[in-house]
């Protein structure tokens, strides 16, 4: 069974695919909805703005098919960075835009003291687990990951947050709800530790098959 990396014109597809392969996945880059027929899990990467991301998902016919797979079929899903944010109800970047709406919440710009904290939040930062989570189970040592973002996901129900990060304000570094896994950091760019997170996602995905 394959892991589908969704190509919607916005992702660092190559990096994500190669990292997933290094973590042991059989990857297919899905360029159209019919590519999802034989997949066990879905990864939505993302480099870009919220508004453009949704425009591309709509334009390429991904919105309904992804929602069916993830929300109705409960297929394991990993959203990375913009791919995390698009799961929200709405996003603020370049004007209010309706998101996929799988996890109620809004995506807002980091609101921090600009003298002390630069935005974008760019670089390596520690995260802190707020509750047990499938993606982080059994990982020891400092949880330091690579972040590149100016916006963050504020879920309506904060209990879905599985890890937080602090950059002048505390924000959701990871969200987990049933089959939906969202990370604001880039596991595919976080060297060995990042690959471990991808391995955890794969282990969960394949365990369900």
């Amino acid at each position, binding site marked *: 069974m394959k892991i589908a990396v969704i190509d919607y*014109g916005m992702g*660092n*597809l*190559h*990096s994500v695919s*190669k*990292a997933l392969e*290094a973590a042991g996945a059989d990857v297919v880059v899905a360029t159209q909805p019919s590519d999802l027929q034989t997949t066990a899990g879905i990864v939505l990467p993302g*480099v*870009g*703005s919220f508004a*453009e991301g949704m425009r591309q998902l709509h334009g390429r016919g991904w919105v309904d098919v992804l929602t069916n797979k993830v929300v109705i079929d409960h297929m394991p899903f990993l959203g990375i960075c*913009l791919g995390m944010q698009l799961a929200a109800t709405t996003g603020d*970047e*370049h004007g209010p835009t309706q998101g996929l709406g799988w996890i109620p919440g809004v995506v807002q710009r980091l609101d921090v003291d*600009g*003298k002390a*904290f*630069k*935005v*974008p*939040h*760019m*670089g*390596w*930062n*520690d995260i802190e687990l707020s509750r047990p989570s499938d993606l982080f189970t059994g990982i020891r040592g*400092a949880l*330091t990951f*690579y*972040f*590149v*973002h*100016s916006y963050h996901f504020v879920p309506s129900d904060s209990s879905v947050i599985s890890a937080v990060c*602090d*950059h002048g304000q505390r924000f959701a570094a990871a969200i987990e709800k049933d089959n939906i896994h969202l990370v604001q950091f*880039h596991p*595919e*760019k*976080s*060297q*060995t530790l*990042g*690959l471990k997170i991808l391995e955890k996602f794969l282990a969960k995905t394949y365990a369900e098959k």
Partner: protein
Amino acid sequence: MLKNRIIPILLLKNGRCVKGKQFGNFRDTGAPVSAAKVYDAQRVDELVFLDILASKEERDILLPIVTETAQECFMPLTVGGGIKTIEDMKVLFAAGADKICINTAAVENPQLILEASQYFGRANIVVAIDYRENSDGLREVYTHAGTRTTGLNALAWCRTVDGLGAGEIILTSIDREGSMSGYDLEFIRQVTQLVSVPVIAHGGAGTLAHLKEGVTVGGASGVAAASIFHFTDQSPIKARAYLKDNQVNVRV
């Protein structure tokens, strides 16, 4: 808390790494993918490829290097050199670049910064600014790999690119580049106090103490260097240990 980054910069020419002094006298320093793998093994925080020839033909050579690096190194990769359009950027992002760095094109067409940051997200667009101190003591922006004057005041240009949507600024003092005499700390400090985005200090780091000063005196979010890692026995591993021992917040 966000860590300060240690960032090797690899200058590329005809598909090879080169290193010079004040943007000239380039010496071959090896194959870029091998160099990237070594840095990845040393767990550097990020890597920057800057292609100094910046021609269309050159980009055809650069592309497979980016692809291959991204296949083997799971760390952040910034790529720059001759990028002029959104289409150029799309190709490099697809190949595995995480951030795109523009320099000359940003000066020639400042709207490109705005368009790129709207399209790809501000965080992924880096503006590199190369400057020299002119005879009046003013710092002036240079383009085309340090060969052309622009008349632009470097500090004012930093403010402009911040306003247009640059997600990060790599600030390079041409006078100090390759000199190993230390960063242009006074100016770096002025810029870090002026702009809202992260600033990467580049040009002049010759000792580990210089790297530290970039953060503690200059206020830079990251310190970039080439010569110190190529031509001395200082590795990013030693740099990280030194900075940590000196209370700089780095990744361990």
